[in-house]
Structure formats: C-alpha cells, structure tokens
C-alpha cells in the first residue's frame, strides 16, 4: 500500500507537469498551440521534452540519492536498476528538446537551423551553459554504456558521472530565463523551484551529509583484519556509541576506507554477523583490484560508512519458518540473518552452495550457530566440485530444494548468491508459483 502511494505520488508529478504545460500551450496568445500550426506544435512538444527530461533527471537523483524513506519501501538495488534503465531513456528527451525547439524558433523567426542554434548560444540567456550541460550529460551517459560493456573500469564511470551534478546546475538557469512555461506562469515556476529544492535537499542530506554525520557521531575505524577461508577477508569496524548505529542483520553499506590507495573508491559490502552494538564485520571476497587490496588495510584506519542500506532484513519475514539460500560469498548477509532469525526463535533452514569445501566461508561459525540454536537452525552444504565430500553434491536445483526442504512453500525464502544462481532460482520459484511476497533478495552491485 505504501509502495502504491509513492508510485501514485510520482505519477502525479508527471501529471502536474504535463497539466501545467498543456494549460500554457492551450491558452497561448497565438491560440491553441497543440492543435494549431506545426511550428507551434514543434515548440510545444520541444518544451515538453525538456520538462520531462528535467523531471526524469530529478527522479534519477532521488533514485540514486540513497534516500532512506524511499529505499525502505522499494530497496536500493531496485532503485539503482531503475536508475540505470531511465538513464538511457532520458537521452531521447535530451536530443528531442534542443532539436524541436531550435527547429520551431528557426521557422518562427525565418532563419536557418544552424543560425538559430548559434543565436541561442550567443544571445539567449543561459542557453550556452545549458548546451554545455547537455554535452556533459551525453559524455556521462556514454561512459555508462562503456562500463556496461565492461570496456572501462567502474571507477572511470563513477568519476565521469560526478560532473552530472555540474551539468544539472548549468542547465538550471535557462529554464527560468528563457523557459516560456515558467516566465509566463509563476505557479508553474514556483512548483518547479519546489521540486528542485525537495530533490536537492534529499540528495544532500542522505547522500552527502548523513555519512559525515555518522562518521562524526561514531568515528568508525578498523579494529582488525581477519583472513577467513580461501580468498575472503573480514574487516571488523569499531566506533563510539555503536549501540546507536541503526544497522540490521542482512543490510549492506557503502564503505570508503580513508587511507592511501583506498580513499577515492567506495564499494558496497554486507555485514556478516548480527550487530552486537560494539562492532560490525564486513566479509569481502577478493574479486577485483580493490577487493584484492583489502588484506593490506591496517587497524586504526578511519572508515566512512554510507548506509546501512537495504531491506533484506528479518522484519520483512511474514512467517515463522524461513529458507535461507546462499551461494559463495552471498553467505555474508545470510550468515547474519541466520544468527538473528534463530535468536528470534524462527524455524530456519540454510542451504549453502559452493564449489568445494575450501570455498565454504564461516563453516565453523555456522556449526556453532547450529549448536546454539537448540534445533531451530539447520545448515545444509551443497558442493558441486568436491569428490571427497560426503554431503549433498551437485548444483542447487529445484529437485534438491523439494527433497531437502519439503515444506519450502510454507516458508519465507531469502536468496543471496552469484547473479547466475539468483537468476535460475528466481525463475524456478516463479515457475512453481511461489508468491513474490515470500521471496526476498537484493542485488548488491550499485
């Protein structure tokens, strides 16, 4: 219901903008531009493209702004996915706006397209800044394609995206100086200022101020670095008044280690044990340049934490029985959840898939949790490439789940693992009509 409410609120913004635009163009001094001469339609639809481009860009900032009240409803991973999707759609509006408006004005003034474009840049207030702004946006979107294709590193994309904020500010002025929707309608202008202010207030608070406030409040620093099995390293982070740090098992945080070689990158990692009010633990697998350097971190290193984020939490569970499914390093939030859920006296079965025994992370910890759970937690390891293993062998599939957890349809299901495993499992569960509301998962890559 809450989700529906937010969606209605969002859709209403598009309705408000389109409504203002339609009112202004229907009641134009030249008559109804929407049904009049094509030149008028040109200008009208060019302006609508510009309005929708800005509205979508502001929406994009809300999606990626780590806005807590939105995230708690939709989940940060889904918001990030939507952000990626909309980002490419905006291109169409960003192209259509200058193209249509230039064509409309060139016809109206009886000049050529290029002459009109040059006139815009030279004589129309703040239009040149907007043109530069759109160019910056185009470069940022281009780098997003390259990173999707894996042609450039994530960091290159990240830093190519930062000038987007400058581009938004560059394009701001021309909207009020030469945007006829606003110069001729103070109510629309007021609304436009308000949505900018609302978006930037949320962005600045949640994206930039909140991590600094948390740092100043808790002074996070590395307590110790512990090598787990295989290529997984656990980073223990301590701080002041940790009992007031609002973190839940299953959540993740975007972490920036403030030391040479690390400070310019921030990455998302999950907590791997249930918060105890004293410290948090992040368990990180060496998968890339950054994560391979994690064991080099030293105790005492300051840590900036953006988060915690995510709704992969036990309070989302609607039944007293739970099936946790983890694959590989996906065990980190699952390990924390299993601890919390068994402490909450839920009936928990954890299926943990790996290639071989050496790849199992937290094997002993999981054994200890089972012993302490008084039968409420059961852990089943499945290994796909370990001939010496006497337990469950092969890949995790529906047949195994049905055999090992016959009552799985009565359970809330929490999934975390490699993308391929997630895809297969989600497809399988959807195929046998497991209710969507019973399946909990998050994709942690932002």
């Amino acid at each position, binding site marked *: 219901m809450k989700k529906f409410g937010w969606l209605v609120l969002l859709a209403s913004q598009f309705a408000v903008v389109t409504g203002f635009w339609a009112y202004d163009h229907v009641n134009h001094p*030249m008559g109804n531009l929407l049904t009049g001469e094509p030149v008028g339609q040109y200008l009208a639809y060019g302006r609508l493209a510009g309005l929708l481009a800005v509205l979508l860009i502001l929406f994009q900032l809300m999606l990626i702004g780590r806005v807590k009240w939105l995230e708690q409803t939709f989940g940060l991973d889904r918001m990030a996915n939507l952000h990626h999707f909309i980002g490419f759609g905006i291109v169409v509006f960003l192209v259509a706006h200058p193209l249509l408006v230039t064509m409309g004005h060139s016809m109206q003034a009886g000049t050529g397209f290029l002459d009109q474009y040059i006139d815009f840049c030279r004589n129309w207030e703040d239009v040149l800044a907007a043109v530069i702004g759109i160019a910056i946006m185009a470069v940022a979107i281009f780098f997003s394609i390259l990173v999707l294709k894996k042609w450039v590193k994530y960091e290159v994309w990240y830093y190519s995206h930062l000038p987007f904020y400058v581009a938004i500010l560059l394009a701001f002025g021309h909207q009020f100086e030469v945007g006829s929707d606003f110069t001729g309608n103070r109510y629309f202008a007021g609304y436009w200022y308000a949505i900018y202010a609302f978006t930037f207030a949320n962005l600045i608070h949640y994206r930039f101020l909140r991590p600094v406030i948390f740092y100043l409040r808790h002074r996070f620093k590395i307590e110790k670095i512990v090598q787990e099995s295989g290529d997984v390293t656990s980073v223990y982070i301590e701080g002041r008044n940790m009992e007031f740090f609002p973190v839940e098992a299953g959540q993740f945080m975007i972490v920036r280690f403030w030391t040479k070689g690390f400070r310019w990158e921030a990455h998302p990692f999950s907590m791997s044990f249930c918060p105890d009010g004293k410290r948090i633990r992040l368990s990180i697998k060496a998968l890339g340049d950054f994560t391979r350097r994690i064991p080099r971190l030293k105790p005492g290193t300051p840590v900036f934490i953006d988060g915690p984020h995510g709704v992969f939490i036990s309070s989302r569970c609607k039944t007293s029985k739970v099936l946790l499914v983890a694959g590989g390093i996906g065990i980190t939030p699952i390990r924390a959840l299993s601890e919390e859920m068994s402490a909450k006296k839920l009936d928990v079965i954890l299926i943990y898939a790996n290639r071989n025994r050496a790849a199992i992370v937290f094997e002993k910890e999981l054994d200890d949790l089972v012993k302490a759970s008084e039968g409420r937690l059961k852990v089943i390891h499945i290994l796909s490439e370990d001939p010496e293993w006497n337990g469950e062998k092969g890949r995790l599939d529906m047949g195994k789940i049905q055999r090992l957890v016959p009552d799985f349809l009565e359970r809330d299901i929490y999934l975390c693992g490699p993308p391929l495993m997630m895809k297969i499992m989600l497809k399988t569960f959807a195929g046998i009509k497991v209710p969507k509301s019973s399946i909990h998962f998050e994709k942690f890559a932002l």
Partner: protein
Amino acid sequence: MMKRMMVGVLGAIVLCMGMVCTVKAAEEGGKATLDNLQAAFNGESNAKARYEAFAAKADEEGYKSVASLFRAAAKSEGIHAIKHGVMIKKLKAEPKATIEKPDIKSTKENLEASIKGETAEKDSMYPAFIKQAEADKNSGAALTFKGAMAAEVEHAKLYSQALKELDSWKAAGKEFLVCQICGFTTMDMGMKQCPVCAAPRAKFDAVK
C-alpha cells in the same frame, strides 16, 4: 544497450524531421490567402506610416509618452508587414502596398481612431484571414496572422490606457519594448521573454 539508445536517438531525429516535412508541406498556397496576405501587408504598411505621423502630432501637442507609444506601435506594424511580405514571397508573389496619406487629427482623436483600427483587425480582419489560411492549409500565413493579431490586442489595450490617462501621458518617460521577432509591444520593462513567440529579452527593442 548501445543499439537501443541509438534507435531512440534516431527515432527522435526522424520524428523531428517528419515534423519539418509536415510543416513544409503545410506551407502550400491558396489564392484567397495570398490576397489576404497582400491586404494585411498593405494594412500594416499603412498603419506604420499612420502611427509615425500620429507620433509626430503627439510630440507637437506635448503628449510625449503617447508619441513613444505610437513610435513603438509603428515599429511593431513594420515587423508585421515584413513577416507578411516574407510569406507573400514564399507564394511567388511580390508584396504590394499603396501608402495613403494619414488623416491626422488631435492626439485624442488619433488614439480613438487607432483603437478602432486595432479592434477591427483583432476582432474581424485577422480572425477571418486565419480561418482562410487554415482552410488553405497555409500554416506559415496562419502563424504570421496570429502573431500580428496577438500584438494588435496589446496595441488596443495600450491605446485605451493612454486615452484613459491622457493627461498623465503628457510627460515623457514611458518606455516600450517591441519584440523584433513578432512585434509584440509592452510597457512591462521587467519582461524576460515574449509571451507570444518566446523570444528572449535580448530580442526586444526599447522605444522611448
């Protein structure tokens, strides 16, 4: 993803080009519209000459601000005449005007005559011309008629205001802005953008 984005961008460009072709196609002629354009060209050219003469008379009688208004309106009518002329040339004809000697009376009477003229243009002449241009599918002519009509509405308002406050319009000091693109005329010096054609402030001429 790259392909999808390219398709989107190309789609936007094709849509825009399609709209250009629609506009070009819509600029086809119409004999009646050509006659109307010639009539409008003649009317605007005469109005320009008449208002210039009225401005000189107002100056002579000491109505400095009224003189400024007539000069601004004359400039505006000149812009309309040019725009009508461009459309006439697009229909492969030559714009023709017979400038008649203006009937100059007192400034008060000149204002009254001007209100009558502007009202006739905005209420009868241009609406009929627009209707004909739309029937002839000549969007360019319809656009230039609409632009002129929107300006005439303002002219009538300004003349009425001047007539009502004639004594206070004796002193110099009133300034007017005239849009170079469509001829829209206003006393609002804080105006950022033309409400008719959306031209920016830089495209306005100040007339004193």
